[in-house]
């Protein structure tokens, strides 16, 4: 872009920031600039300071959340420490992870008008900008709807609209699609690109980089509160790719393949940042013949059998319409499908919190109607998306002991021994005496799993969105834990929107759409059917698009390459 040199929109000069009450700084010696109209990706592992940086840009930090800031940050000519947050709102608009909490009114159109009204804009002008924004995000049809009656994707679009309507030159998006199904994520991504096309500067934090690597002007890599690199995504990946792998930053699969090959000295071309580039780069690669099929357990026991299960909520909403399936011992199964397809309802039925309103469900040989939640809890463990909801005690240690006591194990020695074992196994020993609420997101997740498994009698573990809010390294640890459990004979069922996880680590996918099961089979079969993928609001992984691209070029690629490891392993 050949724009005339002008004062950057954002400038950080020697910025160090400590959160209120913390001794270690969250951000250190930070210098960076963001140009007007540029599209910047902010990446880094969990806890590297991404959200802190975002909140500095609109002055929430330090003005409302306190803490100690040194150095200066200017946004659109304003010093963020001195300009009131409400005034900064005209310079930087931020979309929060869970925009439901940012809504200040009850109706879609009122919500969009809320910000401009606060800025004392002329009502006529506001009405015009509401119209424009409704068109922009495609919510014109829903303008009179109540905000809580919107789906996840619509909620996110409304959040974006209410920021856009204030017309700030900078829009900050902190993981805007973390809770959305893959197809909706894609449509939000399209909106983000449209914003960029309209000349807004966009700062985006996301783990779904696939669609943005080639589009973004800039990438800022953070690690432990410092800027490791800033530059065009291609250059950052080329120069700091190894570091990014090591840090556990999410990268598109084709990029990861390139970087890993490079690290092993097997590759000396530029690292691809899009699927198309990767297809070009790998077009002359020879692959080994297909790898042996994984062995299947002979006739595993059926743990759960569901036949024509229906569930209708008391407001007559029919969440499940005649769903039938089996869950067998030792499988890793994923339930996937769009937001509101019936996945959470199904998981509540499985743990006995809800009972089928029609049809028959048998768990461990006994009808669902005859199971009490507390008894079923000894067989089926559910880890909630927000593990905090499940915590009952004041320390991690007590939390684990509680689960044992709940199963009638009260011999102090036995309890202590098992608690210590579990702490060590999940690598949370050093936080054993901390309050469960004070753990990091990853550790909370692991503690959630630990409290459910320590009893030792669980045969089925259900995890809701295992990769939510976790970087690649934390995810890998969780996957490893899940695989270990499987080798011990425990069945694992995941509810997820993460297509990489589905493709790489599960045996079977149950696909839900509008309360019905529309597919039940291996991920390979699922992703080979474009109609099915579309109907269930899913999306194939970039690895699969790479393989398809290579095949279209006549490269013979064996079946069953579901992970970056598989792909590299199959290369000659």
């Amino acid at each position, binding site marked *: 872009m050949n724009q005339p040199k002008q004062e950057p929109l954002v400038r950080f000069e020697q910025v160090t920031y400590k959160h209120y009450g913390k001794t270690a700084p969250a951000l250190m010696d930070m210098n960076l600039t963001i140009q007007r109209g540029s599209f910047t990706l902010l990446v880094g592992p969990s806890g590297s300071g991404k959200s802190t940086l975002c*909140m500095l840009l*609109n002055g*929430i930090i330090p003005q*409302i*959340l306190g803490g100690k800031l040194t150095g200066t940050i200017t946004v659109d000519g304003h010093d963020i420490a001195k300009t*009131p*947050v*409400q*005034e900064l*709102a*005209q310079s930087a*608009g*931020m979309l*929060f992870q*869970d*925009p439901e*909490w*940012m809504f*200040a*009114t*009850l*109706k879609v159109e*009122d919500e969009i008008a809320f*910000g*401009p*009204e*606060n*800025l*004392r804009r002329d*009502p006529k002008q*506001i*009405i015009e900008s*509401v119209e424009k924004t409704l068109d922009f995000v495609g919510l014109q049809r829903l303008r009179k709807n*109540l905000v*809580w009656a919107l789906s996840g994707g619509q909620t996110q679009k409304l959040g974006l609209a*209410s*920021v856009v309507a*204030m017309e700030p030159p900078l829009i900050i998006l902190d993981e805007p699609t973390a809770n959305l199904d893959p197809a909706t994520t894609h449509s939000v991504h399209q909106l983000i690109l449209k914003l960029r096309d309209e000349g807004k500067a966009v700062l985006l934090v996301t783990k779904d980089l696939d669609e943005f690597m080639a589009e973004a002007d800039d990438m800022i890599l953070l690690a432990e509160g410092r800027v490791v690199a800033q530059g065009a995504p291609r250059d950052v990946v080329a120069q700091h790719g190894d570091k990014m792998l090591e840090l556990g930053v999410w990268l598109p699969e084709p990029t990861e393949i390139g970087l890993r090959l490079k690290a092993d000295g097997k590759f000396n071309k530029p690292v691809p940042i899009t699927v198309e580039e990767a297809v070009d780069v790998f077009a002359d690669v020879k692959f080994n013949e297909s790898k042996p099929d994984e062995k299947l357990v002979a006739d595993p026991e059926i743990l759960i059998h569901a036949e024509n299960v229906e569930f209708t909520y*008391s*407001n007559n*909403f029919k969440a499940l319409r005649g769903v039938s399936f089996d869950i067998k011992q030792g499988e890793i199964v994923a339930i996937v499908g769009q937001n*509101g397809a019936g996945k959470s309802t199904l998981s*509540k039925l499985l*743990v*006995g*919190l809800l009972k089928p309103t029609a049809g028959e469900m048998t768990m461990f040989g006994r009808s669902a109607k005859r199971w009490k939640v*507390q008894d079923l*809890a000894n067989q089926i463990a559910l880890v*909630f998306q*927000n593990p*905090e*909801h*499940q*915590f*009952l005690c004041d320390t991690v240690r007590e939390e684990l002991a*509680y*689960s044992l*006591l*709940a199963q009638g194990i009260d011999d102090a020695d036995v309890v202590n021994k098992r608690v210590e074992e579990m702490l060590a196994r999940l690598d949370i020993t050093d936080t054993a005496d901390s309050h469960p*609420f004070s753990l990091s997101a990853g550790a909370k997740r692991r503690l959630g799993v630990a409290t459910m498994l320590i009893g030792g009698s669980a045969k089925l573990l259900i995890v809701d969105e295992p990769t939510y809010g976790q970087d690649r390294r934390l995810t890998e640890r969780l996957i490893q834990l899940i695989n270990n459990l499987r080798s011990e004979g425990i069945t694992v069922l995941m509810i997820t929107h993460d297509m990489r996880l589905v493709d790489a680590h599960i045996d079977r996918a149950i696909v839900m759409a509008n309360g019905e099961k529309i597919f039940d089979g291996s991920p390979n079969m699922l992703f080979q059917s474009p109609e099915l993928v579309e109907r269930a609001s899913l999306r194939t992984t970039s690895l699969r698009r790479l393989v398809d691209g290579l095949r279209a070029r006549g490269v013979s690629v064996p079946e069953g390459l579901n992970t970056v490891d598989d792909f590299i392993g199959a290369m000659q």
Partner: protein
Amino acid sequence: MSEHSLRYIDNDSFFTRIDALSKLIWVILVILTTFQLTSNLSRVVMLAVVVFVMIILARVPLKTIWQAMPIILIMGTLLFFVHLFTAPSTQIINVLGFSVGKEGFDKGLQYFLRITIMVLASFILIWTTDIRDLMVGLVSIGMPYRYAFTVFMALRFLPVVQQEVDAVKAAHAIRGRASSSPIRHRIRLWQRYMFTVIVNGLRKAENTALAIESRGFGAFPDRTFVKEFHWTKTGIILLILFIVFAIWLIFWEKNLPIL
């Protein structure tokens, strides 16, 4: 698809179409009148009027009312029993086969009716009013918009707390019971509900506050409103009718024989 009993119902009923301020004044009048009343019979009449408004004028679905029942009845029922057992009674009467003190029963019933009328009237306002209209209305009669908005925030957080309690309850149920004594277990669970609900509730409240400030709320002493406030004719007529009724009720009960 969770259901929450304490939110605005967008059903375009007669009562929903009345302007927000008239409805607010109506609620205040109901509460003031109820405190003037001295007999349980007239309180029952008042309750009947409130129920009439709720079911006929506001067309609140029975299901919603049913779901909100525990919240509606809890305070009244508690107060009923407190007075039933603590009020000094000289006369023993038989109620549904139980022997109870007459004064205690009357006093208990008095509090039960008062609280229930007040709670129901307030709920009708919540069910039928887009709180934004209420805010615009309050600002139009001179209230600074920051204060008017706190009313909205308070009401907005009712469903949040409800949602949070539901989620925590479900999560706790599957943890099983770690104490042989059911009472100790209950106490522990309650402590935890409170803790988790408060921690998460505060966190959400903080997020909302942050989000709203970062959208320019409070940037200036005043703000513009796209929608203006208009008094509705039906609202004024309703208020006049209600005032006539309230005066009649107060005089009517003065002439009642002492029960």
